[in-house]
């Protein structure tokens, strides 16, 4: 019987009209942020794989005399390594350009001793043991380091990591503000209807009876909002998947989420709604607890 007539007139409140929108917006944003985070994580991996097709071998600065010999010896060793497609010692001028980001523009004018770098292309299929290669190269020229195209790799890794972190942080902030919104909406509801709550209380209603009224109401509103927000978010992700790839001309990795990622994403609105209903229950009972 309870619930047929709702004693607390929540549905007319501005707070009530606002709740589905807020929950919807927040779930929408959280969905996008979460998806962006997951997508960036995969994209970072893809790019890293692309880049790992090239290596840079670095031979430390040494005397002019045996420098050329060493470089040639290393290059020779590399050429004989299975999986290596191409080897090219990089000239000093080019190295100077590469060093510019670290050392500034004056690097070209200074007559610095430069390390020798060798550019190596690796067949995609080949699975080169970098550590073993390093060890072998170090025997030929001590101090030689094999770098799997560190510059771009690190630049991209850092970039995607930062973007990932921001995405997840935004998601967390959004979830926190969702809880805050719900606590606030509930407290507003209780404030507007404190008289009704008090009358129900004095008439002999149990706390759970009053709490249920608020919870049922919020459950309905929050579910509607969360569903719409999630569907919109998922729609945008799907659009990005279908059209994003075409528009970027294949340059961006496919904007697709795996089934596991979709499942995680779908758990988001459900978790949000549960959070909402739980919050409401706790808030209502805490307010009621202050009455005799």
């Amino acid at each position, binding site marked *: 019987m309870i619930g047929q007539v709702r*004693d607390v*007139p929540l549905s*007319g409140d501005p707070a009530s009209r606002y709740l589905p929108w807020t929950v919807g917006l927040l779930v929408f944003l959280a969905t996008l942020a979460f998806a962006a985070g997951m997508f960036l994580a995969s994209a970072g991996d893809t790019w890293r794989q692309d880049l790992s097709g090239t290596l840079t071998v670095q031979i430390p600065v040494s005397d002019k005399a045996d420098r050329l010999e060493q470089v040639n010896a290393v290059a020779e060793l590399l050429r004989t390594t299975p999986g290596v497609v191409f080897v090219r010692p990089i000239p000093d001028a080019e190295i100077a350009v590469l060093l510019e980001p670290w050392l500034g523009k004056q690097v070209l004018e200074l007559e610095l001793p430069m390390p020798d770098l060798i550019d190596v292309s690796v067949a995609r299929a080949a699975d080169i043991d970098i550590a073993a290669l390093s060890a072998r190269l170090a025997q030929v020229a001590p101090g030689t380091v094999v770098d799997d195209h560190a510059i771009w790799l690190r630049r991209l890794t850092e970039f995607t990591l930062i973007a990932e972190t921001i995405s997840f942080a935004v998601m967390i902030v959004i979830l926190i503000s969702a809880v805050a919104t719900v606590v606030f909406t509930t407290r507003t509801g209780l404030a507007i209807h404190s008289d009704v709550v008090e*009358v*129900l209380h*004095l*008439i*002999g209603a149990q706390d759970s009876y009053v709490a249920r009224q608020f919870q049922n109401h919020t459950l309905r509103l929050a579910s509607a909002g969360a569903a719409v927000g999630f569907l919109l978010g998922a729609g945008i992700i799907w659009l990005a998947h279908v059209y994003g790839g075409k528009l970027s001309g294949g340059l961006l990795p496919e904007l697709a989420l795996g089934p596991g990622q979709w499942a995680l994403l779908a758990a988001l609105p459900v978790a949000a709604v549960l959070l909402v209903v739980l919050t409401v229950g706790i808030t209502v009972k805490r307010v009621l607890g202050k009455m*005799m």
Partner: protein
Amino acid sequence: MNALANGVGDIVRFENVGMRYRLGAEVLHDVSFSLPAGSFHFLTGPSGAGKSSLMRLMYLAHRPSRGSISMFGRDVSTVPRTELAALRRRIGVVFQDFRLIDHLSALDNVALPLRVAGAKEGQIRNHVAELLKWVGLESQIDDKPTTLSGGEQQRVAIARAVIARPQILLADEPTGNVDDDIAIRLMYLLEELNKIGTTVVVATHNESLIERFKHPCFHVEDGLLSGPGVGVRNDRDPGGDQ
């Protein structure tokens, strides 16, 4: 009725009760009295004397700052929170400011105590409609309180207080907004309830009502209670005229 009308059967029992709001001064001092089951009392006193405050203690909206209160033979201070709700369901209250729920129709307002107590929906409507007819609101059954006149609201409040046949009925100025004809009609309703066992307390300023319905009268002034059986413990209340 008189089966219960002895010390143990007292429905309300105050012993040296003091009351204050928050940290304010005491508004009631050393109030001791008891109401036997089935009695009918008026409660009078000047404006601001403490009538509503005394009522508030009886309908379990406020705790005394000292002394002890028993309702239905149970010491209120020892009753656990969940059982207080059950006790409150045995008390009917007409609030001085009505406290109707604005978004519910007159019918739903009056039905509230039944719903809260878990009554069957099928039994509610007829029962409530009949009572509303009794208080002269048959044509306003589905109106919201905000669209009712002052006196109409007051009658809805009275109907809500009596609908669940409470064991004690506390009516705070229940006739301040109605004319004398309706006031007398409402008093007859309370008397009928009283005849079938309900203990009634009516706080009022209306002296013609007090004269007409010759029930014993408590008087509050300056936070002190005087009247039949006041200060007398475990004695039979000489005032219960049923």
